[in-house]
């Protein structure tokens, strides 16, 4: 197991650094090829999302210069990058990949997107042949672990970002969001994100009002929506069921009289205000009106954090699952390590047996079929009995850390050579055994 991983994520690096490392989807295959061709690397793949860039490899000797690869590839100086990097090897790398796939390392723990992104990265690496035996095993296990975490814990039960909390609340009020209209007041990143979520859940149309009319037009075009002049805000706002407001106004722009006006024009159909402005855009007096549901940034944050508190317990459970899975994965890989040795041991003894039978045949002349069967059974029986203990010992040893020592001893005792199975099973040649651990 010579996994090596290097990367940055939202915790280790600020956005400016992640931006410079982000690899566009179109260039991902080339990057994978380049990585796999880098000295000391057998297999490699790259995960690049808005929150992380990770280079995952299986290396020749467990000590490839992955930092060097990043410096070369992104043309960055070590001092620009190295402080933000984290690096994991072997078991720690396995654990990290499991945690990433299970969304425990995400900014929003439990969000489901990351698994899809990792799967895509894996597919890309496979397509260019950069990801074969070892990484294949690692990632198919990681996907299984992610699924286990999802089904056995409530980590991913409901999403927690502010935007999705807003969607959840909107559904509590309106049931379905089909056909509901959204009004964005004050174009901003966060309101855009919330609007995107709402549209994805079926909202029908969107209005945008902004102090700078041009920005309103720009944002409206993104959603196929309609830009509204800021002066017309109060006349058109009642058409919207959901209002996302985030202006930089120093005072509330929606006051009680506006609310009353909207409600009477809407025949009291309820309105949902998502107020992410600080200071608030919706006055508390207006929020008291029957039929007006206004959530400010603190309310939303509170809803998010209550989810997070529930989730912390679940995350602990998930971490326990992952710890167990890492152990199991390691044990399995070790078992695979001993398989070639067992096979060559069997081959070796079988060769001896055949040679001996041939010698006996020469001396005894023609044998009756019954005699043939008896000799065959006798020799096979002896070999099996002799091999039983060494094979059992190898298999037991595989589950523990002494595997390499035992493998080494058996090979020396029987002078074994492993046949070429390097593509699917790790080759454990003598030289390597010496350098490991």
């Amino acid at each position, binding site marked *: 197991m010579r996994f090596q991983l290097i990367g940055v994520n939202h915790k280790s690096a600020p956005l400016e650094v992640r931006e410079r490392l982000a690899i566009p989807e179109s260039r991902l295959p080339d990057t994978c090829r380049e990585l796999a061709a880098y000295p000391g690397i057998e297999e490699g793949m790259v995960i690049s999302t808005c929150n992380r860039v990770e280079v995952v490899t299986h290396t020749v000797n467990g000590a490839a210069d992955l930092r060097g690869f990043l410096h070369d590839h992104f043309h960055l100086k070590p001092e620009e990058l190295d402080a933000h990097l984290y690096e994991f090897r072997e078991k720690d790398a396995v654990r990290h990949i499991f945690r990433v796939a299970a969304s425990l390392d995400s900014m929003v723990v439990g969000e489901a997107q990351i698994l899809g992104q990792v799967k895509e990265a894996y597919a890309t690496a496979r397509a260019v042949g950069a990801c074969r035996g070892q990484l294949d095993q690692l990632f198919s296990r990681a996907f299984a672990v992610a699924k286990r975490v999802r089904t056995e814990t409530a980590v991913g039960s409901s999403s927690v970002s502010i935007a999705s*909390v807003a969607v*959840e*609340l909107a*559904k*509590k*009020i*309106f*049931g*379905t969001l089909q056909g509901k209209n959204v009004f964005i007041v004050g174009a901003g990143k966060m309101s855009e994100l919330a609007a995107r979520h709402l549209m994805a859940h079926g909202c029908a149309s969107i209005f945008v009002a902004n102090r700078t009319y041009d920005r309103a037009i720009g944002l409206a075009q993104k959603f196929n929506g309609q830009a509204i002049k800021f002066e017309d805000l109060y006349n058109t706002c009642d058409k919207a069921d959901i209002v996302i407001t985030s202006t930089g106004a120093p005072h509330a722009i929606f006051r009680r009289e506006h609310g009353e006006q909207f409600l*009477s024009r*809407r*025949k*009291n*159909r*309820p309105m949902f205000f998502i107020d992410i402005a600080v200071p608030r855009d919706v006055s508390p007096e207006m929020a008291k009106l*029957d*039929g007006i*549901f206004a*959530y400010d940034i603190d*309310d939303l944050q*509170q*809803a998010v954090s*209550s*989810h997070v508190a529930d989730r912390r317990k679940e995350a602990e459970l998930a971490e326990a699952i992952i710890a167990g899975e890492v152990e199991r994965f390691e044990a399995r890989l070790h078992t695979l390590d001993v398989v070639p040795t067992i096979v060559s041991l069997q081959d070796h003894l079988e060769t001896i047996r055949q040679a001996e039978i041939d010698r006996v045949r020469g001396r005894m002349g023609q044998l009756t079929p019954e005699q043939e069967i008896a000799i065959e059974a006798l020799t096979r029986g002896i070999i099996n009995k002799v091999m039983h203990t060494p094979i059992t010992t190898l298999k037991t040893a595989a589950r523990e850390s002494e595997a390499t020592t035992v493998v080494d001893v058996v090979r020396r005792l029987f002078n074994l050579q492993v046949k070429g199975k390097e593509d699917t099973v790790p080759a454990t040649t003598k030289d390597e055994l010496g350098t490991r651990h």
Partner: protein
Amino acid sequence: MSLLWLRFALGCYFIGLIYAFVALTRTSDLFSRIALHAASLGMVFHFVSLVELFLTGHVLWASVHNGESLLGFLSMTFFMVIYSIYQTTSPGVVVFPVVFFLTFVAAVDEQPVLQMAFIQHKGWLVAHIILIFTGYAALVLSFGASLLYLIQERRLKAKKPSSLISFLPALEVIDQIGYRSLLLGFPFMTLGLITGSIVAMSAYGHIDFTDPKILLSLLMWAVYMIMVFTRWNSGWRGRRAAVLATFAFVAAIVAWAANYFSTIHRFAA
């Protein structure tokens, strides 16, 4: 026999009653499914009980208890219709206790059936009873919905994080349930009162507007109409609608209780 079946039904509805209390504090998919099945089974028994009553050949509903039994059955039918449309058992929180109460009262004992003075208007009388009771059942439901609306509105306004995992359906869905029951119930109630007046006119030759039963029925109808009108005209919902619905519900109960005082609209001697 009919009473026996009714008591079986009562047993089933009892599970629904427990569900109503439990659902106020926690949600359980399994339990709501059990309650739903129990209620359906209860309806089967209830139906058998009503059919047997009918087969006895009397003008069957002309007893307070039988009337209550019928009303319970109709309320349950409404509940099931709503379940099939909205896939929610939440109205059961109100409907189950009401139905249980009605069935319980009806299942206590047999009542002597009054020999009707106006037996010659049997057709009109049957129409009157069915129409009025359907109206009542719809009223029960829209009353339940308006209470649920208030609860849900409070939860959303309180911004307690737990409001996100409440057992109630969305606010607009509750509102639709209430409004649709209201709209459906109103014509039944109106026609029921008209047929009742026809029966009374032909039996007594005039309508005595000072009779408490008639006064209260008219009052109830007026409140009902105000509810439909304010909702249709200015979309009243929430607190104001709940106040009206409560008023109409109380009026309905009082109008029902008036059967015990009225000189012209009585069941048992």
